[in-house]
């Protein structure tokens, strides 16, 4: 369920949008919540009591004693299941502790994909509960909790139905149906025998009870039948209603018999909240045993100058890789502790997903979602859009889908959107892609990190220890919606890492001369860099997907009339579903997706948000799960920023190299299939993030080597996007060529405020 923080009564501090504001944790009493359950209880108990008092005595005399006993047993069963369904914890997950969320909110992606029996399933970051929701878990906005195996929130019992109490709910429905049928039947029997003296009180009461029973029978029986089908198919109401498996395969089913036995016969699942704490008293005292270091580890230790910062022993593989410089440049100043390079980190998925992207400045917290790490271009676009006309918070998971990743990204993006759309409008776009298209999330990130790190390490070595805090470009960061700017927005010299979470830093050695360039200049340049890879708005992916699946497209996009100018230098778009495949082959700096050929209108090149809200919201948000809102869905066709001229020309920048680099990286990563599942998006985001994170740093703009130069562009782009009021790229674009190349010896680094530093190397 979309986490409507506005709907839930109260929020804990963790879900508060503004860290410094304190939200009272207690919820206000809302009597309206209790009306349905009270009514249900009233009718149930009242009618049955009347039945027992007025109808049963005569029946027990004239037929048998079994009548009231049978009815009594069934009624008891109904009541017991009703109480269990009402009062039992459905499987609420406790909020994650602070230290579990290691990554800075600003950088972690909103979605994490996991493969379940060959099918990609997305796990969304829950900003209220601070973890990635396990599969089948959903956040109930009424109860403000994440519930395991979430089925639905039932107003009649005023409780969520989840893993722990689904069985009781199901049995309640079955028994209630039987109970209603029994009451109606026996009441009818009574009436048939009392046709002559129907005006007696007993008969009248029986008639009234029969009416109530008859009235409730239809919805209850309908619901019972519905749940019988769900149980047989191994689906939850949430999945059925949101159409997750329509056209797809349900990875959670084990066959009808096993599904039924799982519901009815499995052991009662334990609750997570309110458990008795068992205190372990274990003494942990140094000295500690240590395993023998392997050769490789020893060698690695030697390599890294023996530098072991004790700051943030980050688990990011980025830092590990940093020591491996591919440059001949002097080693960087001391960095945070480096462990053993080359070790792939996939340890914590969150970690591996974390691509250190610069934190999002406050003002951009509601930015349209961009896939993190995607190219800077994406970011720039986002910012540009925002600056220009951001109607709201749109989610564009992958604005900048460079060809390579485009396919996947788009598939992912579209999947994301679709899912979001689905949830929003209860449309039915499956959120799971078919198996076989597995996009190994972690292995890919590992690969990417491996590659990216090399490039980034080169960056680092050349630059030094300045952290450049850049606005988070990609929207798919967790903290996108966070209202606090990243703690340390220091963009200048100094080697402080800006906050605990940040790992990937751009480091520039203070010894390098730093000059600040006028912002407009920077902007121009950056925009031009950014341009190269406009990426198709996710919409069209969404549309493509739906077209493929025959689903109605939920988010309408007006035909991209204004996009005519946008020149996807790529070939005119072929039918939308072919795009998936085409993207991989584009190099692009062009916006392939821009095809207007698709029946669905495409969002403009610099897509403004369009897609469904929070689902398409690639970044984890601190405040709440729901994206900001209405604006995200409102415009399918965002006001358009004028499309800048094709950036092909500016590609000579390092951005081109960056694009190239990213393309390569993404290609590597995209072993699996293309196309579309919604799951693709997150992957893409992840992948894109990595290169970006690695790449910060001031590298010479002109690409000396593609690997080295690539990194710089994203950072630049990021910073550009971070600038408030950076406006239309188009205006600045014009000037970009002038700033193009400054020869090999200048690095541009953009700080948080949008200032650019040119560092001559």
């Amino acid at each position, binding site marked *: 369920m979309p986490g409507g923080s506005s709907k839930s009564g109260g929020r804990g501090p963790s879900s508060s949008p503004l860290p410094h504001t304190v939200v009272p944790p207690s919820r206000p009493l809302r009597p309206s919540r209790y009306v349905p359950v009270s009514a249900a209880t009233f009718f149930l108990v009242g009618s049955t009591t009347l039945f027992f008092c007025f109808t049963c005595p005569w029946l027990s005399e004239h037929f048998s004693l079994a009548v009231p006993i049978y009815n009594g047993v069934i009624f008891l069963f109904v009541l017991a299941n009703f109480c269990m369904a009402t009062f039992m914890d459905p499987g609420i997950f406790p909020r994650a502790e602070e230290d*579990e969320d290691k990554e800075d909110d600003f950088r972690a992606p909103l979605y994490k994909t996991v493969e379940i029996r060959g099918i990609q399933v997305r796990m969304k970051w829950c900003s209220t509960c601070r973890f990635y929701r396990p599969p089948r878990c959903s956040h109930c906005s009424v109860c403000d909790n994440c519930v395991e195996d979430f089925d639905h929130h039932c107003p009649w019992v005023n409780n969520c139905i989840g893993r722990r109490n689904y069985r009781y709910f199901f049995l309640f429905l079955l028994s209630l149906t039987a109970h209603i049928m029994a009451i109606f039947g026996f009441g009818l029997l009574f009436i048939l025998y009392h046709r002559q003296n129907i005006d007696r009180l007993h008969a009248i009461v029986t008639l009234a009870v029969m009416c109530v029973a008859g009235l409730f029978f239809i919805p209850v029986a309908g619901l019972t039948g519905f749940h019988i089908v769900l149980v047989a198919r191994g689906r939850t109401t949430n999945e059925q209603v949101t159409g997750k498996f329509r056209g797809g395969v349900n990875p959670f089913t084990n066959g009808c018999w096993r599904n039924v036995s799982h519901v009815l016969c*499995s052991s*009662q699942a334990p609750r997570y909240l309110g458990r008795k704490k*068992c205190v372990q008293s274990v003494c*942990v*005292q140094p000295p*500690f045993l240590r395993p023998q270091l392997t050769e490789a580890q020893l060698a690695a230790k030697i390599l890294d100058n023996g530098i072991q910062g004790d700051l943030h022993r980050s688990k990011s593989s980025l830092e590990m890789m940093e020591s491996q410089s591919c440059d001949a440049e002097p080693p960087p100043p001391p960095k945070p502790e480096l462990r053993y390079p080359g070790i792939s980190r996939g340890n914590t998925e969150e970690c591996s997903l974390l691509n250190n992207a610069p934190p999002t400045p406050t003002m951009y917290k509601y930015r349209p979602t961009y896939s993190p790490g995607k190219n800077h271009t994406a970011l720039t676009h986002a910012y540009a859009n925002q600056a220009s006309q951001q109607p709201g918070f749109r989610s564009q998971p992958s604005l900048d889908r460079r060809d390579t990743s485009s396919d996947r990204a788009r598939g992912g993006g579209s999947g994301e959107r679709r899912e979001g759309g689905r949830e929003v409008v209860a449309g039915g776009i499956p959120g799971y892609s078919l198996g076989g298209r597995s996009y190994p999330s972690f292995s890919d990130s590992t690969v990417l990190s491996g590659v990216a790190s090399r490039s980034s390490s080169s960056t680092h070595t050349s630059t030094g220890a300045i952290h450049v805090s850049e606005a988070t470009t990609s929207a798919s960061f967790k903290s996108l919606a966070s209202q606090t700017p990243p703690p340390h927005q220091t963009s200048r010299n100094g080697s402080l890492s800006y906050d605990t979470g940040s790992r990937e830093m751009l480091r520039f050695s203070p010894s390098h001369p730093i000059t600040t360039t006028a912002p407009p200049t920077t902007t121009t340049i950056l925009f031009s860099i950014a341009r190269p890879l406009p990426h198709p708005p996710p919409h069209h992916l969404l549309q493509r997907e739906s077209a493929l699946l025959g689903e109605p497209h939920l988010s309408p996009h007006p035909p991209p009339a204004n996009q005519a100018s946008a020149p996807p230098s790529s070939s005119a778009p072929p039918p939308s579903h072919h795009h998936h495949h085409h993207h991989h082959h584009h190099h692009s700096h062009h916006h392939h997706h821009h095809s207007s050929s698709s029946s669905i209108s495409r969002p403009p090149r610099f897509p403004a948000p369009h897609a469904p809200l929070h689902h398409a919201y690639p970044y984890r948000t601190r405040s709440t799960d729901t994206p900001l809102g209405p604006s995200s869905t409102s415009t399918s066709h965002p006001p358009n920023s004028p499309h800048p001229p094709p950036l092909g020309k500016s590609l000579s920048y390092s951005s081109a190299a960056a694009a190239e680099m990213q393309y390569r990286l993404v290609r590597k990563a995209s072993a699996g299939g293309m196309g579309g599942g919604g799951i693709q998006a997150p992957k893409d985001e992840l992948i894109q993030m990595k290169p970006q994170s690695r790449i910060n740093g001031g590298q010479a703009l002109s690409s000396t080597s593609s690997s080295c130069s690539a990194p710089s562009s994203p950072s630049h782009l990021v910073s550009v996007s971070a600038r408030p009021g950076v406006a239309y790229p188009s205006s600045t674009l014009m000037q970009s060529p002038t700033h193009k190349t400054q020869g090999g010896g200048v690095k541009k680094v953009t700080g948080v405020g949008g200032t650019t530093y040119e560092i001559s190397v």
Partner: protein
Amino acid sequence: TSEFHNLQELRHSASLETKVFIQRDYTEGTVCRFQTKFPSELDNRIERTLLEETVKTLNSYYVEAEKIGGQSYLEGCLACATAYIIFLCMETRYEKVLRKISGYIQEQNEKIYAPRGLLLTDPIERGMRVLEISIFEDQGSGTSSPSSSSMSSTGSAR
């Protein structure tokens, strides 16, 4: 934050350095299983085989807890027949296994992990989403990140 401590106190204290989380393995659905992939942060703290063994044992416990068989079926029928009042008196199968798991984790902590400056936290306290391993650093000897208070006993108590 800087804290002033008696140097003597600090000499042999251990403080929490960081935590590593072993995530759930969802490749087979929503059954409770933890990944056996070895986290790199523990590379120099514990042998791979030991951790893998622990995780595998835990996984087998969870399989046993979630098994649908005769015992769980009978439990369900009995509960139904007594209008679930039996839940007040009886411990369910799952809870029994959870107790076993808790004991196992305690034992592993005492024997294997604490001597290496690590501590396992029962996954049930994290909603069975992660297996948390706390890594302690010896403040007296190596570098350590700014830490919270030194802990001599760890517990799930929070």
